[in-house]
């Protein structure tokens, strides 16, 4: 389970995130939605431990900053940044060592082949295209067998085959009881994946909705109905 409890973050005088709370239970796919500048990236960076924040973030009940929490948490950033002098397979081996996981050669090859990277194993980080970097970034997150995974715009730059594969992977993770949180603007891509969605704007969570809550309503319609409504009304209506 991923719990974000009263998280606030200031950049100088600017309050980017104001007392944000939400939780994504085990085996659930959560979607973080919001227009540009809503504070999604700040929430994501806080969960990943990349920025200072006030409040608490818990991963499977442990403080997100604890080593034990980090060991079971995987993160796919919006823009992948490879080590330019490490090959694809060396990136994976580094992750295995850093997270202390044992992965068989067969498992590793299976993962790489799912994202069509098997023949790119010996390519250096600076020899990869943006799409390939994104695939490697996803593989690096999956190789550690996480219990909680955070994907920030994971489909940007991916080809249709990789998007299809990623969707399948997310469904498999969900079936295995993994907590998944995806931040994306590509609403069409996640319409068959999501269980719970959090709509953010101006540093606040405007509402959280489960699939059961909204019935047949489209994610896009939901997004516009929430963000275009006045904030106090929206808050009153959904919390």
């Amino acid at each position, binding site marked *: 389970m991923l719990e974000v409890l009263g998280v606030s973050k200031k950049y100088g005088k600017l309050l980017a995130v104001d007392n944000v709370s939400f939780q994504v239970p085990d085996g659930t796919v959560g979607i973080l939605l919001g227009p540009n500048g809503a504070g999604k990236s700040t929430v994501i960076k806080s969960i*990943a*431990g*990349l*920025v*200072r924040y006030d409040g608490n973030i818990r991963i499977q009940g442990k403080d997100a*900053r604890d*080593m*034990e929490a*980090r*060991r079971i*948490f995987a*993160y796919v*950033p919006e823009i*992948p*940044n*490879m*080590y*330019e*002098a*490490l*090959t694809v397979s*060396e*990136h994976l*081996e*580094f*992750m295995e*060592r*850093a*997270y*202390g996981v044992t992965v068989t050669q067969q498992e590793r090859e299976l993962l790489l082949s799912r994202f069509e990277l098997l023949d790119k194993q010996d390519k*250096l*980080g600076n020899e990869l295209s943006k799409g390939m970097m994104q695939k490697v*970034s996803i593989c*690096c997150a999956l190789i550690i067998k996480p219990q909680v995974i955070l994907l920030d715009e994971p489909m940007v730059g991916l080809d249709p085959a990789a998007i299809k594969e990623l969707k399948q992977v997310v469904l498999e993770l969900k079936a295995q009881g993994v907590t998944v949180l995806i931040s994306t603007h590509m609403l069409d891509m996640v319409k068959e994946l999501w269980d719970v969605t959090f709509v953010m704007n101006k540093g606040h969570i405007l509402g959280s909705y489960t699939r059961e809550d909204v019935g047949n309503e489209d994610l896009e319609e939901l997004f516009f109905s929430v963000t275009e409504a006045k904030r106090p009304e929206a808050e009153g209506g959904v919390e």
Partner: protein
Amino acid sequence: MNAILYLYRHTFRNRLRKAIRKPVTYVYLAIIILYLFMIPFSFKTMFSEFHMDNPEGMAAVLTAFAFWIIPANLVAYAKRKGLLFRKSDTHFLFTAPISPKKVLLYAHVKNLFVNLFLNLAVALCGAYIFGVTWWQMILYFLFSVIVENLLESGIMLLCYGNQRLGEKGRALVVKAAYGLVGILVLIAAVGYAKEGLSWDFVLGYLHSDAVQMVPVIGWYTAVIHLLFTGPTVVNVIGSVLYLVLLAAVLLGALRMKCTGEYYEDAMKFADDYEEVLVNRRQGRSDVRLGKKKHFGRAAVSYRGSGAKAIFYRQLLEYKKNRFFFFDMTTLFCLGGSIFIAWLYHSEGGFGDLTDFMIPMIMAYVVFIFTTLSGKWGVELKSPYTFLIPDTAFNKLWYATAIQHIQAIVNGTLLALPAGIVMGQSPLTIGLSILMFVMLNACKLYILAVAEIAVGNVLGQVGKQMFQLFLMGIGISVAVIGGILGMMVGGLNLAYIMITVLLAGETAIFMTIASLCFYRMETVEG
């Protein structure tokens, strides 16, 4: 540590493998080896002239370096700027279950190879230049590699990663570092007031007991003096205090709380650093690490269409700049001109070189700034430049027009004050300005030629070497023309020959660049 060692080992190995395959590596290696042989020889002569070719001289040199390096490191670590993190570290290391202290050590250890190499060079130089015994050099090498690195790592951990220190605590460390420098300056000022300025005073100051009593910096110099000049009461006490400091720092570093609160600052540093790298690759030197450029409000009215739009867009950008298109080169030109004028006035001329002093300085200024291309370099990389529906020649002209105007201003600043003081005729001054404009134009078009000719083959450094090579040829041809002109018809003909030849070269490079521009346009399209 297993993962970090893996990362360090494999990054180093892959870089080495890649470098071995590149011919340019061997050129750099040859240059480094040449330097390594040349520097000790030239330094030996210089130090013996100053009677410093002895172990005391070695202690004095290392003391002087310590005055600069130790406070600079302290300030950098306290400002969370002294460690080189990349975006890949943000992606993989900061989010991994690796102790944030180890992540700091990883960034510090990145410099270990260079550190080892430099210390070895210093040890060898010590034996050769300063006549220090081998056992002393071995001891110094071990001290600098082990003890100094341990202390620096500890201070780095305490300043950069210690969460109990907080922002105010780190600001205090910065103030303390400046305070230590202040004490050193005060000691120097008191000595100067008593003895006056002389070489003996400088040496005496560097060896003084007072300096060795200054915390951190002075204690380090006490160890150095103990090692090279023998024990005294002060340097033994200073050395003991250095070791006590080491123990305290290491203990503090082991105990301190560090859960990765510094990642936010390190991440910002990584972003800023990569931005600077990208800009440097484009030949822009005006972007400084961590300094955001501020733009004012401005407006231009566009006249005409096609490539003229590039000119007006550049004009708008320059108008938003605080100093319009005046930059370091402008200051350099004005400063250079005033310096030439002052030197001419105080020396009464430059002998045979008097008439050519200004063109020589101009050639030097353009040559050393050859690889800095300003807006033009950015223009060349922009797809919009190629997509504008106009001829390649027009684009080339309008994209560089403002830089030609800039060259006229800079050339005037360089040629006019010095020319007037030196009593040059208006024709000579005018031709000098024209020379500067032509030299600059050559530089600009050479960048385009180099981009097309070798940009994809040699990489960034290779391309810059090629630019320098072409610029060197261009200047050499003009110089030969100038010499011939001087021999045949005197000074005015020499100036005219240089200007005409530079104009011819500009036309040639511009034509090649416009042809390449067209080709690039076709390929890109």
